[in-house]
């Protein structure tokens, strides 16, 4: 399994840089991963990351619609916070696997 040193901490990741062990995730690591993606994390970002991590821990599908219905942010805002590919980027920063959902 691949490993990567992020902010001085060794983390297990896959070949695309997604955490393979969500338990290794911390807020500090998230900030560093986000920086690599060109994103400066705000409280709003962290609220979304918490939401995604919670859904993942419950085994629920990560869909963009669920983020839009989370009450944290609407979908347009989500695209604004994680520009380009929001679900993939947010999952990467949240330390969870790449979303396997098509919606």
């Amino acid at each position, binding site marked *: 399994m691949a490993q990567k040193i992020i902010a001085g901490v060794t983390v297990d990741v896959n070949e695309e840089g997604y955490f393979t062990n969500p338990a290794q995730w911390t807020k500090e690591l998230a900030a560093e991963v986000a920086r690599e993606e060109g994103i400066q994390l705000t409280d709003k970002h962290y609220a979304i990351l918490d939401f995604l991590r919670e859904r993942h821990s419950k085994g629920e599908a990560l869909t963009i619609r669920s983020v839009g219905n989370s009450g944290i942010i609407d979908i347009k805002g989500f695209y604004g916070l994680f520009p380009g590919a929001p679900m993939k980027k947010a999952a990467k920063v949240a330390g969870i696997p790449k979303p396997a*959902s098509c*919606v």
Partner: protein
Amino acid sequence: MHRCASPLSKTMNMANEEFPLKKVCIICAKGTIEDVYAALVMSNGAVMEGIETKMFFTFFGLDAITKKTMNCLHTGTVGNPAMRMPGGLPFPTLLGVIPGVEAGVSSMMRSQMDKLDIPPVKEFLEMIEAGGGEVYACKLAMDMFKLKKDDLWEGVKEVLTVGQFYEKCGGLQTQIIFT
């Protein structure tokens, strides 16, 4: 049989990495649930990948962006050999002609999709729009069905001729997809 790393597949992988898809233009010409959702899922998926996305609705596909019809699309219960009963048995075509069956099957399909977090048509279009995707309507088909811009969902960006749509489809790493 799976063959590893043939010279051809290596070249193709390099091409995929060097020339990722940048833009998709997706055309929807039919108005059944499955045809419309194929276009919507492909488009929303593209937007979520950061791919520039343009949708073009024409002929019966216009039902998907017409206010009156967009949230009550049907699937055909007649002449569809892939149609199955809930248990998996074939769905007799003769059953499909009974009044109300098509509506029932269609609403069952919509509720199944809702369980998978697949939104209704209007909400799906709004999601695509929120991510920067653009939705266009075909002028010729609108003339044919006597539809006006006001009849369409507010998010439709423009009514275009085929030529105008092609003008928007230019650029390297662009694909036109007909669902």
